């Protein structure tokens, strides 16, 4: 049961996690807290009721500088980066030449630079791919000396605003450079829970004291990776490596909204041919939300069938939604089965479990739009 966490990387908050009673597990090469003594269920519900503090320092942070940085990045993503207004952030995909998804990431326009946050499991590949595509005059600066904290939940703004009133004026997907408790921070009003909140990049050497400051705010409790996963699944958000990867296209993954309108006229991003074809002719399969009947969860890799019939897909993420108070999943099904409410059967341990296609998010998001 106990897996060795030796030879794993530590975030700047490793010692704090242990002090808080975090149960450390390997994740993307890092020792990370899957939960604290409150437990996944309690941490999940606390985040939806008050505010949760997450260490996401394992994720990759970098900045892209140079006059044509946005155009350079557009060579690798179908997102509209050039049209991203100053102090705004956007969700984007890196696509493969074959039209798969190389990674998903956040890009923010801080005026004099683009700020990127990519998945921990993909950061080395992502940064190498970006660097290899850069023209003269555009430079990628990796930021390994920065930690990343997420403060998420309906209580987040009230908890942190006394430290920096400017935070309260931000809208969903705004970014700002703000000094909070004496620490210069890159802040975005976004997250991975479906709740209002902030992701805050801080210098690694200030991270522990900063985290302690946030944990001392009213209503703030530490939340581990376990609840991070159940929160994002309730919010209908993809996990790279589970729900999207190099074999899934942006159209199959129902992430067409992340493709810029202009980019859909230019068709000059990696894999544009496949995306263009799929938008015109449809795809074989689509990512959908799935709700099993009853209380039994169906996990990733569970086969999806038509009732009493053939296999039409597979679950990519599945579990129990503490706020939903029921099981939930997402996965890929054949296009004919992708409409909301379509009955399905999930083969769990050899037995069919009745389920239906369901709209996502499973729990309504509460972004500060």
């Amino acid at each position, binding site marked *: 049961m106990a897996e060795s966490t030796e030879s794993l990387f530590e975030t700047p908050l490793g010692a704090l996690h242990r002090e808080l009673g975090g149960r450390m597990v390997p994740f993307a090469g890092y020792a990370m807290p899957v939960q604290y003594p409150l437990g*996944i*269920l309690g941490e999940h519900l606390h985040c939806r009721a008050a505010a949760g503090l997450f260490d996401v320092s394992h994720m990759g942070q970098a900045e892209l500088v140079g006059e044509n940085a946005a155009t350079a990045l557009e060579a690798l993503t179908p997102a509209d980066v050039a049209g991203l207004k100053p102090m705004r952030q956007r969700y984007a995909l890196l696509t493969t030449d074959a039209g798969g998804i190389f990674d998903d990431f956040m890009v923010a326009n801080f005026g004099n630079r683009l700020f990127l946050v990519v998945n921990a499991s993909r950061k080395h590949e992502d940064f190498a791919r970006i660097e290899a595509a850069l023209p003269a005059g555009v430079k990628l600066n990796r930021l390994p000396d920065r930690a990343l904290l997420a403060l998420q939940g309906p209580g987040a703004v009230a908890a942190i605003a006394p430290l920096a009133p400017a935070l309260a004026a931000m809208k969903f997907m705004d970014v700002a450079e703000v000094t909070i408790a004496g620490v210069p921070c890159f802040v975005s009003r976004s997250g991975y829970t479906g709740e209002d909140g902030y992701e805050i990049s801080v210098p690694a050497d200030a991270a522990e004291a900063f985290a302690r400051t946030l944990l001392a705010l009213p209503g703030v409790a530490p939340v581990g990776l376990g*609840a991070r996963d159940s929160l994002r699944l309730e919010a209908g958000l993809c996990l790279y490596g589970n729900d999207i990867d190099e074999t899934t296209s942006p159209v199959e993954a129902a992430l067409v909204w992340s493709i810029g309108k202009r980019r859909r006229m230019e068709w000059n991003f990696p894999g544009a041919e496949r995306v263009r074809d799929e938008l015109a002719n449809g795809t074989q399969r689509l990512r959908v939300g799935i709700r099993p009947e009853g*209380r*039994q969860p169906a996990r990733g890799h569970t086969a999806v069938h038509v009732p009493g019939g053939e296999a039409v897909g597979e679950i990519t993420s599945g*579990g*129990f939604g503490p706020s939903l108070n029921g099981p939930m999943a997402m996965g890929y099904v054949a296009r004919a089965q992708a409409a909301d409410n379509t009955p399905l059967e999930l083969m769990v341990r050899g037995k069919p479990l009745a389920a239906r296609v369901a709209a996502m998010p499973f729990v309504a998001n509460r972004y500060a739009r």
Partner: protein
Amino acid sequence: MSDLKFSKDHEWVAMEGDVATIGITDHAQQALGDVVFVELPELGRMVKAGEACAVVESVKAASDVYAPISGRVVEVNSALGDNPGTINSDPAGEGWFFKLEATAPAELAELMDDSAYHRFVEENA
């Protein structure tokens, strides 16, 4: 819990006559986290020692529960269906899983007593 016996898969067994009540240990429920669903064996099913015969699901993952001894399933704790959290709050009491009519009661001797189980947990921590 001194008259309970324990398996290496972290189940406990309480014998009363030839009927064994089986559940998971406090250590196991802590490791699993909050239980949200439990699948219990069918009544009358014959199970062998070490056979997976129930499933316990936490928010995060599904885990098998094994029969610590061989026998026939004579009762299941259907109250867990509505209140799976009982497995966390009272694992050695109201959180029991199922009862077996033992077909090879001698197998009980293969299981650990309380102090041996605690040593086992510490050694495998």
